[in-house]
Structures are given as structure tokens and as C-alpha cells.
């Protein structure tokens, strides 16, 4: 599987995600945000970081980059697009995913491990997991508070498009397990076609026993298997 990782000025987790892709058996190539064409890719990744300093609104300026129209076109053609953290924010700003990510309810940046419940295994990103499986992966963000209007939330749920929810270690969805105030503990969502995933947590940072866990690896394995 060959992934293209888009790098914006201020992106800072591009190497982390590339390493995770390699661990899962894929290859990764970086592309600078001002390219208007993309090489052939089985996966496009919008990685974590602070594109354009997160100034104005997280992801806002990155979503207006030269490379984005091509990302949107490829997504429309069915290429999987993964947005992690800042990448998720960019995806909502481009309109590829609905809703917005607001300032964390506690107002502080949060870096810690959280538990995620896999809400659907029905996607190229999550098929290596079982529905209901509980993962431990870190979050590291200031603006991860998922918001969308009631209709949108209903649509997401009806179409099984919520990919991950924040949960307790036993998989229960509680307010205490919600690190940032996201509506319905939503941590990640899919587009209608299920080939675009945006998620706040960082599966790429727990893909190696030395990092203290490998729960995040399944996501990248899923992608490698989908393509193979």
C-alpha cells in the first residue's frame, strides 16, 4: 500500500504517521501543501500538527491549500482519505466531513491516553477491529470538541458513520470518559461513502510495543489489507 502524506506548514506528526504506516507494511511519501497534483496513492493522509499555526481556526488555512482540490477529487473517486487530529479539522473545513471541532470543553490542551470504542468495523479503516472493541490510544489536542447540528448527528448515527467514541476502559460511554466535550463522545466519523475518516486521537502513536502499546496498529493494518 502506498500512502501519500500531505505536509502543511506547521504539520508536525507526519513522520509519526509515516512510521506507523511502515510498521503496518505500507509505504509513505510526503507531499508539500502547494502541489496541485498528487502521485498515485492508495491512501491520502492529512496528519496531525498545527498547520498554519492553527491560527484563525484550526485547519482553516490548510483547507484552502493548493493541494486540497486534488484531495477532494481523489476522495470523490473513492481513494481512502485519513485525517488525524489537525487532519480531521482540515477535513471538516474542506466540507469532506460534516461538523466542526471546537475548543476543548476544559479549554486546555490535553495529551493523554484515552479509551475508544470501535463503533463500526464496516470501513476500510476499521475492518481489522471488531465492533465494540475497546482501544487505548492517546489524544493530543486543544480543539477536539466535536460539534454538529442535531440533524447531522442523527444522520451520522443512522448511517453507521460514527467510527469511534470515547469510552471507559470497560467500553461504557460516559461523560467522565469524554476528554473534550464532544457531542455524544464522538471521536471519529466517516463520510457517506465510508472512504474518508476523520478522528481526533492518534492511533499512530501507539503502534509499537516500545511506545507502550499497539492498539493503533489495527487501523493501519486495515488499510494495508483493504488495498492488498
Amino acid at each position, binding site marked *: 500500500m502506498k500512502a501519500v502524506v500531505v505536509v502543511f506548514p506547521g504539520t508536525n506528526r507526519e513522520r509519526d504517521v509515516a512510521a506507523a504506516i511502515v510498521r503496518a507494511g505500507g509505504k509513505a511519501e510526503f507531499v508539500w501543501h502547494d502541489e496541485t497534483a498528487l502521485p498515485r496513492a492508495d491512501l491520502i493522509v492529512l496528519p496531525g500538527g498545527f498547520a498554519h499555526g492553527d491560527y*484563525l*481556526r484550526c485547519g*482553516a*488555512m490548510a483547507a*484552502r491549500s493548493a493541494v486540497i482540490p486534488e484531495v477532494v477529487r481523489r476522495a470523490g473517486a473513492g481513494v481512502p482519505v485519513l485525517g488525524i487530529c489537525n487532519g480531521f479539522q482540515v477535513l*471538516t*473545513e474542506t466540507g469532506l466531513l*460534516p*461538523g*466542526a471541532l*471546537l*475548543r*476543548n*470543553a*476544559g*479549554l486546555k490542551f490535553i495529551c493523554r491516553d484515552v479509551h475508544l470504542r470501535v463503533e463500526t468495523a464496516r470501513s476500510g479503516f476499521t475492518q481489522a477491529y471488531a465492533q465494540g472493541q475497546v482501544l487505548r490510544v492517546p489524544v493530543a489536542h486543544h480543539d477536539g*470538541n466535536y*460539534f454538529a*447540528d442535531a440533524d447531522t448527528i442523527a444522520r451520522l448515527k443512522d448511517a453507521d458513520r460514527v467510527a469511534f467514541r470515547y469510552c471507559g476502559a470497560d467500553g461504557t460511554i460516559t461523560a467522565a470518559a469524554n476528554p473534550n*466535550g464532544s457531542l455524544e463522545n464522538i471521536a471519529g466519523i466517516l463520510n457517506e461513502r465510508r472512504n474518508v475518516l476523520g478522528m481526533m486521537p492518534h492511533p499512530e502513536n501507539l503502534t509499537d510495543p516500545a511506545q507502550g502499546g499497539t492498539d493503533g496498529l489495527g487501523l493501519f493494518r486495515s488499510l494495508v489489507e483493504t488495498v492488498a
Partner: protein
Amino acid sequence: MKARVHITLKTGVLDPQGKAIGKALGTLGFEGVGEVRQGKLIEIELDETDPARAEASVRDMCEKLLANTVIEKYDVELVG
């Protein structure tokens, strides 16, 4: 010519910052404080001297970049 853009969250969109400010004001002993909302103020110097054209251009900036109309609304004011 200078434009002042106010960007605020639409009603119904949760405003964690405004909420926190409201709470902090209460703790500081300010009484009779109702809802607090936090928005952005963006001031832009423009070469354009025609007010109508200036305003149109700034509105365009809002639509294209400054505001996320999924959650935000904006108003434009020309000053000086």
C-alpha cells in the same frame, strides 16, 4: 480604508470559552452576568477606497476564509 469583521458563533453552537468566562466572572464576584459569548474581531487595512467594493471584498473574504459558516456568522463594518 479599514474593515472590522466580527465573527461570532451561531446560536445553538456551544461556546466553551464564553461559558468559562461567564463562570470566571461569577467567581470574581461580578453579579448579574448573563450569557457570555466569545467571538473574533478581525481588522483589515484595505487599499480599496470605494466603500461598496470594499465591503463586497471583505464579505468574500469571510465566506472564503475568515468564517466557518457551518458554525459561525459574521458582520462587516467599514471604519475610517
